[in-house]
């Protein structure tokens, strides 16, 4: 088992322990900083050591402030060096209006999932450029603001590199590592799905990139890759380890990827993004008809203004 899996399991145990004690993990804020460059060390050694450390008794006011702020663990200095795009509003402007709008969406999603069962949602749209990737990223960031949520973002847009669109990997400037393409094209029987997951600078926020290694050729065989039996098994396995799995898929009218990811991947629901002032009504309706004709559970809609 990889170090990430071990870290995840330790995190799960910690969460269970926190739930049992009803006390948040009161480790030092900056002590839990997860650095991008040394992710493995950060997730294994410092975090584990921090978890194993005995909590220091703190004043109630200090503890309350920490509970409010430590839900997202971040190192502003290091992230600033990453030069992340401004579209990550939940990170850049935590008190901003748009961040609050994402938080409202988060609250509604969590309210609909009262039993806190793992949810796997495919985010798609009628046409390209409606803000799917931005929505997935900001929604994931807002979800991990709740410290109990573990979120996995899957970059399911195998055509992003061909069309020049933004991808999760590109926006987060992830290092070149095997991703969804390698996972689906792997011929190993006992595939370690967690080995393809990459950590992010945010605590409990992970990313399964498409493919950032070499690239080329994936767009042509995207359907073939998505039809792989490993898709369902892999997504099921990942879903079991995360509270929220958000899959960023290409436009449903242009490509069948969203339908395959939603159907073959066993998604719990499809969430559509509709760009105001831009997306033609007729295309939205056609997308809905298309998805419903595939017996996919189209659950909700988010309006954007790209």
């Amino acid at each position, binding site marked *: 088992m990889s170090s990430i899996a071990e870290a995840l399991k330790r995190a799960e145990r910690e969460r269970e322990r926190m739930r049992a004690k009803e006390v948040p993990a009161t480790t030092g804020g900056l002590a839990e900083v997860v650095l991008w460059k040394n992710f493995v060390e950060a997730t294994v050694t410092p975090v584990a050591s921090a978890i194993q450390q005995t909590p220091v008794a703190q004043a109630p006011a200090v503890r309350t402030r920490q509970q409010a702020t430590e839900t997202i663990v971040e190192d502003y200095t290091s992230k600033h060096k990453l030069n992340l795009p401004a579209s990550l509003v939940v990170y850049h402007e935590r008190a901003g209006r748009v961040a609050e709008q994402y938080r409202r969406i988060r609250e509604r999603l969590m309210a609909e999932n009262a039993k806190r069962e793992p949810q796997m949602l495919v985010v798609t749209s009628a046409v390209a450029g409606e803000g799917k990737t931005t929505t997935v990223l900001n929604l994931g960031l807002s979800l991990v603001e709740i410290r109990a949520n573990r979120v996995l973002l899957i970059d399911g847009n195998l055509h992003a590199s061909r069309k020049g669109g933004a991808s999760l990997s590109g926006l987060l400037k992830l290092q070149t590592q095997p991703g969804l393409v390698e996972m689906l094209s792997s011929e190993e029987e006992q595939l370690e799905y967690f080995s393809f997951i990459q950590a992010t600078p945010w605590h409990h926020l992970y990313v399964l990139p498409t493919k950032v290694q070499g690239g080329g050729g994936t767009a042509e065989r995207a359907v073939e890759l998505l039809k792989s039996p490993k898709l369902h098994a892999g997504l099921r396995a990942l879903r079991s380890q995360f509270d929220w799995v958000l899959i960023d898929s290409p436009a449903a009218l242009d490509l069948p990827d969203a339908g395959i990811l939603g159907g073959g991947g066993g998604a719990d629901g499809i969430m559509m993004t509709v760009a105001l002032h831009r997306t033609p*009504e007729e295309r939205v309706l056609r997308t*809905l008809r298309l998805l419903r004709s595939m017996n996919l559970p189209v659950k909700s809609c988010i*309006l954007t203004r790209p």
Partner: protein
Amino acid sequence: MTVSTSGTLLSLSAKTPRKRPLRRTIQRHVVRLFTVFSIICSLIFLAVPFLERRYELSGSVAISIPSFLANLPQSTLAEFQQQPASEGVRVVLQDSAAQFSAIAPTYNAAWTHLHHAADQFAIMLNHRVEEQQRSLQSSAERLAASEQAIIKEIDAYRLTHHGMLGEGPNNPNSVQAQFDKIRGKLDDQRERLQFVTGQIVRLRSLKAPVVSETIARPAEHDPEVMTIRAQMQLLDEQLAEQLGTMQRTERHPYVVALRAKESELKKKLEIAQERVAAGRPPSDAAMGNVAGKSNVELQLEILLADQETLEAQVKRLTSQRDQLQKQVDELLPIRREFEKLTDQLASVRKERETVKERDVVKVGAVGVLGMGADGTLPRFPRLIPTYVLGIALAAGVTMLGALVVHKRDHAMHTLQEVSAAIDLPILGVISDIRSPAQRQWHRLWRSFGRPGVVVVGAVMMLGSAVLCYYQLSNDEISLEPRMVMRGLGKIA
């Protein structure tokens, strides 16, 4: 209409096409539309002054005398438009400045020639009119004096021949009427005298053989009846004279006596007629032989007396007629002279009216010659039509653009539109995601940029309109053929 299948379930749904008013599109793109409008307006206002301008020069000769028009020089230029004679000659030229410069000599020569002819003719006409006016004035004065003299003469005639002139020949008191009356009376008396003379002759013939009247004769030939009738006729004449000429009434004693005598004679006539009907001869008393004379002799005496009376009357009437004839003869030339004077007076008055009328006509025939236009304002393009057309064209293009945008806009713009279109729960609306710098720029744009665009568009439009105004209205271009009338003024 939509048909979708879900397993074995077939669902049909139909939706009416969404209708969005054009007003919403205009409101959403109002700044852009105004920008387009102002740009088009400005371009039109800036481009119009560069179009080739056309100028109009006009001149007119306001003399409405056909002979003047007939004497005008025949121009070969097609642009010289001769209007109807009532409006004189009007020349309108429309050309660009370059064309005007090219044909300036031709226009100048033709127009100068026309002016010269008009000048000469108008001066000549002016002189003639003045001469005619002077002669007419003297004629009018002479006629007025003549009229006054005639009027005085007529008045003198009327004073001299009071009761004869001015009352008409049908007046019974006029000389002519009296003359006619006396002449008629004289003829009557002459006829009566002739009758009496005939009776005298007849009675004298009756007086010679005295025959006893034993044989019954008709009443008309009975001497007594005839005598009575003659007396009655004489009596009637006397009564008529008394009642008619003498204008006496029935109450006059002489008329009463004559009436009594007439009734007596009527009784005698009845008795005589009865006697004649009985076949008896007339008695001596009945024959009027009062003094012992025979009836015929008595009758003759009466007739002789009547004859004398009549002769005296005829003589008197003849003298009266001769006197009146003399007066009538004197009156005839006077009347002729009077009628002549009256006619002359009427003709003088008519001539005076004619002189006045002709004077008016001659003076009004030559009016003020119109001044030529100097052609500094272009006939095309004009300022106001340029503004109106530019604004209308820009508004039309802008509205067309708005219509195109509206027709091509199939997107949904509000949460309500999306809710009505799709039956999905909407988790939220994400606003525009901008970086702080972008947001700052956007704020600046909304605060200053968009109003600035509107202001700049309006200023650009107004500026171009003002520029267009100055270029079109203050055109200092100088056109060679200025058609300005020379040498003529008001002809009084």
